[in-house]
């Protein structure tokens, strides 16, 4: 186990280095570099900008700048927001919880519904239910999340008046029920795509488990179909889903950004777009790197969990 852990950990560190190099490249693609905002300041001459660049070490070779930048990232110095001067990590921290709440709820929803559809599709293979579920999943994968959100607001807020159109809580209320009330529609919208993905993979995994020899043995022993499904099939089918959950992280984050925009949800995605609008590059860069780090860590955790649950993985 420790060998597996060490191996997997070192892979993640290599990946983080590559991720940071890609991020650094994007940072340097930004027009005028990190000092772009001073180029427009009439109080600063070209000489001033050059002096500032020299002071900040921006005239050094790129690889040296990268090492310096990466070292500060590791130390937790991610720069300061242009907007209010607070540290980037603190700004991200203020928005992290809202995003995690949205992502967590919709992922739980997607797993519950997707698992049910997938298992039913596999046990009733080629039935009307299975056929409809397959087609619905493919259409759901093609619907732009923001459009689904707009349709949801149109029907459930404007026509039926069941749920609020946006924000995380009503000002002056803020009870748990109020939060839940605001959470329903965005998490439903965000989960749609993942219900589709999850149910398709779950169907394949269940079919795979159903065709195993131990299922035949159980049937030969006279175990009831229901018991076979619950005790022998579902557990085995859910194993590869742990890896899938890790792999889905980037797409959940992408969906979260769009959903947060439509529902004015105060999370990382909204923060990212707001910061883009203000040309607040330190926060934009911080969120870009942070999202990738989140994905790398998520995959690492998924791999460790599956290695704990399934000993075959860590022995291979």
């Amino acid at each position, binding site marked *: 186990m420790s060998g597996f852990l060490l191996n997997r950990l070192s892979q993640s560190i*290599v*990946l983080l280095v*590559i*991720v940071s*190099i*890609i991020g650094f490249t*994007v940072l340097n*693609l*930004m*027009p005028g570099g990190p000092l772009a905002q001073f180029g427009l300041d009439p109080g600063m001459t070209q000489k001033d900008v050059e002096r500032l660049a020299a002071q900040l070490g921006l005239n050094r070779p790129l690889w040296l700048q990268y090492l310096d930048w990466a070292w500060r990232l590791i130390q937790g110095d991610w720069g300061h927001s242009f907007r209010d001067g607070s540290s980037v990590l603190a700004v991200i921290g203020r928005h992290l919880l809202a995003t995690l709440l949205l992502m967590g709820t919709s992922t739980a929803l997607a797993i519950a519904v997707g698992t049910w559809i997938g298992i039913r599709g596999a046990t009733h293979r080629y039935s009307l239910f299975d056929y409809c579920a*397959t*087609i619905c*999943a*493919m*259409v759901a*994968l*093609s*619907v*732009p*999340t*923001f*459009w689904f959100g*707009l*349709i949801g*607001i*149109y029907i459930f807020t*404007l026509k039926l008046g069941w749920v609020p159109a946006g924000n995380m809580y009503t000002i002056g209320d803020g009870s748990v029920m109020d939060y839940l009330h605001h959470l329903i529609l965005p998490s439903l919208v965000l989960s749609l795509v993942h219900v589709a993905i999850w149910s*398709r*993979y779950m*169907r*394949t995994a269940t079919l795979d488990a159903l065709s195993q020899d131990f299922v035949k043995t159980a049937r030969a022993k006279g175990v009831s179909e229901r018991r076979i499904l619950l005790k022998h099939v579902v557990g085995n089918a859910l194993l590869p889903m742990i890896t899938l959950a890790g792999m889905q*992280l*980037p*797409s959940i*984050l*992408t969906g979260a*950004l*769009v959903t947060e*925009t*439509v529902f004015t949800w105060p999370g990382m995605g909204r923060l*990212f*777009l707001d910061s*883009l609008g203000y040309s607040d590059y330190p926060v*934009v*860069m911080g*969120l*870009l790197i942070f*999202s*990738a780090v989140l*994905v*790398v860590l998520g995959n690492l955790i998924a791999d460790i969990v599956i290695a704990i649950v399934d000993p075959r993985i860590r022995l291979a």
Partner: protein
Amino acid sequence: MTAIAAHLPPTRWWHSRAVYRFMRHHLALVGIAMITLLVLACTIGPYALPYDSLHIDLRARFAPPLSGHHYFGTDPLGRDLAARLLMAGRVSLLVGFSAMLLSTLIGTLVGVTAGYRGGWIGAALMRVVDGFLSYPSIFLVLALAATLRPSPVMITVIIAVTSWMETARIVEAEVRSLREREFVQAARMVGLSRRHIMFREILPNAMGPIIVAASLAVARAILLEAYISFLGYGIQPPLPSWGNMLNGAQQYLASAPWLAIIPGAAITIAVTSFNFIGDGLRDALDVRNDHF
């Protein structure tokens, strides 16, 4: 030998089993039909409609669908929505298709090189693929689109540069499995150059998975363009795209819901069609046997 060949019916590509299997895939045929209709409508349609997509008529603002000759109604400036939808379709489909071509090209080059060379070059290239895949695509695309000047060509390049990794992974795996086959060993023994073996011997045998990945890549590129244009960093007005038509739609949701519903439906139809076609191709070319 020649006598026998002369008696055999000529084998053309449309006689192959793959085409036969594809033709039996109903959803894929539906996809082909819908895309054909969409492309025809977007190319010919604007000439058949009575209004120009840029013609502003403030007296006819917010006309609901089916009022007069405004079949899909009008937008806040009184421009005909149907005309704009078809012009936007040209932009969105073209961007989606070009981004697919470019990303498939990059992905194939990286995949073939990594798969055939192997060793530390292959390992390093695949780690770069992993690195790009760690970024949620929309964060990377938005950061690039906001800082580089967003022209349609630049948007296409940005989408391609952030979505070639899937193809690279698929091609790398395929090439790695083909590398030690007899025909490749034979080609090596004859003394053909590495480039010739990579692109003339191995690549044609890896075309199936590449074609499947490409059809799904069009769907993803259209979606990605819609996302960033909706958020205001993609195709810039007055040039319409399906995404930027939805850009201001949210504030008129109560009074003019058709502004949001119609362009979104167009995106969904186009993307669904390409996903159907991709699914049919996957079955026909038998790339993977797992049926979702």
